[in-house]
């Protein structure tokens, strides 16, 4: 069994207490509080991180289950000096207000764009086959696991479209 979890390219020992969720491991043990706790029950998406490139709700997973995994948190996507294209677009489009859901939104969007690139269909897709077009409805559907009580949704959609366009260009 692997004894460490890699977070943003640094290895950390797995905590001794098996009850520690991946979310609390990140926030309390690693000290990366960019990942937020909004519900601790998989209902809000504030705790979204990337595990081996895929988005998950880190509150729904125990740290002990992630030996050998590579976790990317919001801090691993960019920083104030060097923000990612999505992070920049969120600022430009005011895709947040209080900012508490925002790291989860950005992590989720990062993985979501990859899922679209991979051609994974969603409920909003025209067809189960072929390429997926990045429509507003696709974004809305795929981002619906990330609640924003401030109601920044239209701006989040605009930010994601913008960042995706920039990526493609």
């Amino acid at each position, binding site marked *: 069994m692997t004894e460490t979890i890699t977070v943003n390219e640094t290895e950390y020992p797995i905590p001794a*207490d098996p009850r520690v969720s991946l979310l609390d491991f990140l926030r309390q043990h690693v000290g990366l509080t960019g990942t937020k706790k909004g519900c601790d029950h998989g209902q809000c998406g504030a705790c979204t991180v990337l595990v081996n490139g895929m988005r998950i709700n880190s509150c729904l997973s125990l740290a002990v289950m992630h030996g050998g995994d590579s976790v990317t948190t919001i801090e691993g996507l960019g920083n104030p000096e060097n923000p990612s294209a999505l*992070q920049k677009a969120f600022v430009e489009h*005011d*895709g947040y207000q209080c*900012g508490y859901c925002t790291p989860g939104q950005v992590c989720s969007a990062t993985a979501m764009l990859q899922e679209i690139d991979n051609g994974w269909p969603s409920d909003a897709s025209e067809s189960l086959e072929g390429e997926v077009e990045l429509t507003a409805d696709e974004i809305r559907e795929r981002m619906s696991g990330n609640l924003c009580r401030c109601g920044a*949704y239209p701006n989040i959609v605009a930010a994601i479209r913008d960042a995706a366009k920039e990526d493609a260009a």
Partner: protein
Amino acid sequence: MNIHVKQDEAAKECRLDDMKQGILGRDVSRPDGLPKVTGTAPYAAEYKIDGCLEGVIVTSTIVKGEVTNIDASSVLDMPGVEAVIDDPRLTARAAQGTAGEAPAQPARKVGYFGQPVAVVVARTFEEARDAAKHLKIEYRVEDDAIVDPEEADAEAQGDGTKMGDLAEAMNSARHSVDVVITTEGHNSAPMEPHAAIAEWDGDKLTVHASLQMLNYNISELADSLDLDEEKIRLIARYVGGGFGSKLGVSEETVAACVAAMELQRPVRVVMSRQQVFQCVMRRSETRQRLRLAADEDGKLIGFGHEARVSNLPGEEFAEPVLQSSEFLYRGENRLLELEVARIHRMTAGSVRAPGEAVGMPALEAAMDMLAEKVGIDPVELRLRNIPERHPAKDLPFTDHSLAECLTKGAEAFGWDKGPRKPMQKREGEWWIGTGMASAARVHNVSEAKARVTLKADGTALVETDMTDIGTGTYAILTQLAGEMLGLPVDKVLVDLGDTNHPRGPGSGGSWGAASIGSAVFVACEAVRKQVAEKAGVSENELSLSDGRVMNGATLTDLLDGADISAEGHYEPGAISEDYTASGFGAFFAEVRVNRYTGETRVNRMLGSFGFGRVLNAKTARSQCLGGVTWSIGLALTEGLKFDPRDGHLANCDLAEYHVPVNRDVPEVEILLLDGRDPLASAIQAKGVGELGMCGGAAAIANAIYNACGARVLDYPMTPDRVIAAMPENA
């Protein structure tokens, strides 16, 4: 230097309009944006403090009675457990907004299911949570608790408004509507759960907390702990949403402080999501009777709005459902009455736009029914009923933009003018329809203080304990100071959320921007005077931009090593009694309703809003978007469900209480009607944080009716209710 301005007259000319920097009102991005999107902005629970213990709140399993025994020994042997905090200072409820004094104590006296009664403190969160579940508590149960508002006795709230004879007006009216509309309770559900870390050094408390109104919270906390305010420092630089639920100090903050003082160690207490639902604030459910009496042209001659809300015994707050109904429409025969039923559910208090959030959706649905009876366009019906003056108090209005919002909104939306008929457009299983509603939200301002320092290095610093709860305070104060002092946004630093700074009004009731903005403005005026003196010109002649005085000298040269600082103190004055001030707006919505499932989807929405000066087009629009999102939730999905036996909240999490998700919110267009309201504040601005949800749900209700003929009288209009109201022939 301190400068005090009491607004006893209109701010007719405002220096802001003469300034040259050109950043105020523009769509400037928030200075707090990068910290937020990169996860580096610290919220209350996220300060790294050595040796910090974790506290978990334990809540009551009875509705009413008393805790007779808390058996600490049942958990003290568990791993990591440090203490069980069972202390008369623990609070049983959250303080109401602007209370400024301790909420109900002690926690051992139980008034509702889920009330905090104790706190377990351990080394780690996991240990504290486990022990909290095992803590043995004994109660003496009082079984006379009434939990259903319809079964409880109600008391009148204030005198209400009675003018003329409404019953007679209803009898003689050519057209009338008499309808009962209900709304369910709501939870603010900010994404950041309530949280605090308290540190006690034996003399002073330093508290990081997630609160909206530090100026009041410090008094509430001091009173709860029986401590001098001078011994407390409250810090809230980032607040993950509040929406009313963090107006007053709530149980976790007091608990963290009590624990830290008892244990002489820093303690963090964070509410679980379920606790945020169960033991902070609910918006009261409402039952509202609307009576509208109109002549043949649709002019109102009678206006009745009676509402029943509820709260715990001893709570002064009553959802002010009738607030905007008092003045929105004409009608010389008026009856407005509010009553409060006393029940044992968790505290009812402010949830975004208390009053109008639920009063306006009821009124505006009734207005739609009236428009149909009169046979005129619903926009036209509103236009015909805008009063010249406050219909009961006979006061003039300050800047009144309802007519403009209605006409401009209708035009931008592409509103089909004319009398309307339901069931005109169908696509497959879906009926399509449109609806509209007016928006109104009373305007408030409050006393506020802020310090502005123009530094020798050519930057400016703004300091106040005012909070930014997502509202954009950092942005607008940056712009105000930058505009007045001729500095670009990156040369202004705004330092908020610390009670060591001059005291602001806090964020709530949409009063933050206008109040603290006025204080910053006043301080900047004083700084400008001193700059002018140095430059050898009068303040009127002083033109500043990009860090330069008009003749080309830089501010740095002019200041010559010395800072200039002023504390601005703004207070509303005599005029606040002489006028009725409100923000106004209009909502337009297109929906589709499924004939077979009753599901409603909002296709598009538009909101037009007038609230005086727009301080930041980007953040103001975001506030409106947020409001419209809440309108959608209120209309279609949000409602607290209580167990009728013990009043416990059955849907106390985000899986069962449905706030709108991304796909529930369509394209939303926002029109900001930039204006000036010299009577509203020194900066001629009004609040906008709540306006966007004051009536929007009715635009959706009216669109549902227009689509499929289902007039749903109970919010939220869930599929079961829509199906039940759908006409046979739909």
